[in-house]
């Protein structure tokens, strides 16, 4: 009787564990489509002071990078890749809008963001808002950035940031992230498959 009760309790535990695993899997499956369906947005200005949001790029893919121009390693590497992708898209380049969202808007605006980006590719649109709008944009894209005081950086501070490239669909839906150092050819192939 005692043994039987123990066996029953054990079986009950197994059943609970199984139910737990199934529930987790079901929740995991549910989370993915909802994550893929999110629509990040922002309200940020170009060099001329015109305000842009994601709706301005409807019908096109947007390739979005959050960066800062006092960044001589990660940012030029990524912008070079974006430039390669845009060149290799050839006649289909007008179906993709590359965006550089400044996480260091005040300094970047002062030093000439559009001039800097034009040196990589004329199609790259640089956007720099105020601090609150920048924070809101990052939160909307679910990315992290932070100002770090550092004596080893120009002007005594630098930015830590998510270095990936984000691909946004023609309806403004988040499609995917390309991690830092994804080869341009891989990004190009993915984009060409979608257009």
């Amino acid at each position, binding site marked *: 009787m005692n043994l039987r009760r123990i066996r029953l309790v054990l079986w009950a535990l197994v059943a609970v564990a199984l139910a737990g695993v199934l529930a987790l899997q079901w929740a995991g499956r549910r989370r993915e489509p909802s994550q893929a369906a999110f629509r990040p947005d922002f309200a940020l200005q170009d060099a001329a002071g015109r305000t842009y949001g994601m709706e301005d790029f409807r019908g096109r893919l947007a390739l979005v990078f959050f960066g800062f*121009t*006092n*960044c*001589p*390693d*990660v940012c*030029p*590497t990524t*912008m*070079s890749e974006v*430039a390669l992708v845009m060149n290799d898209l050839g006649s289909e380049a007008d179906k993709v809008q590359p965006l550089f969202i400044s996480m260091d808007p005040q300094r970047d605006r002062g*030093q*000439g963001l559009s*001039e*800097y980006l034009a*040196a*990589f590719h004329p199609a790259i649109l640089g956007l720099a808002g105020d601090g609150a709008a920048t924070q809101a944009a990052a939160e909307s894209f679910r990315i*992290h950035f*932070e100002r*770090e005081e*550092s004596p*080893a*950086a*120009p002007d005594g501070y*630098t930015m*830590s*940031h*998510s*270095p*990936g490239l984000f691909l946004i669909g023609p309806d403004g839906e988040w499609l995917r992230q390309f991690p*830092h*150092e994804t080869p341009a050819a891989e990004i190009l192939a993915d984009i060409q498959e979608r257009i």
Partner: protein
Amino acid sequence: MKRFAIVLGLAVMLPLAAAAECASVSAGDLTVTGAWSRATIGTARPAVFYVEIRNDGETGDRLTGIDTPVAAMPMLHRTVVKDGVASMPHAEAIDIPAGETVSLAPGGYHGMLMELTAPLAEGETFPVVLRFERAGSVEIDAPVLSIRAQGAECDAAG
């Protein structure tokens, strides 16, 4: 026959002429080569310095700093991507283990050239002194490549 030999010789030389061999400087067991940098717009933003260091010796060495007349505040940095966040802390020193080649290259270590004294124009070169713990100071000329450059545009010295 002699003309054939000359033509053959030229044909062999052609691929070599296409990409010149990287300048290379040796000091003790260390060989420094493949230096390059990216063009800048003006002097407000920091420039970058990349290079390759080979240690053919039996003893490790360390790169402890760099100097260059083009920047008042040159420093060794390392790009670190941790939990999806990139930062570039100061690297106190870079180990050059015995028998190994260490690269300062995009995505890893770099010379961070802050407070530029002049813009870096594509096609120019500028000198950089690398300070090693054991091998002492080694000076190499860094060619300034396009702002879009992704790597040295020369063949690594053999």
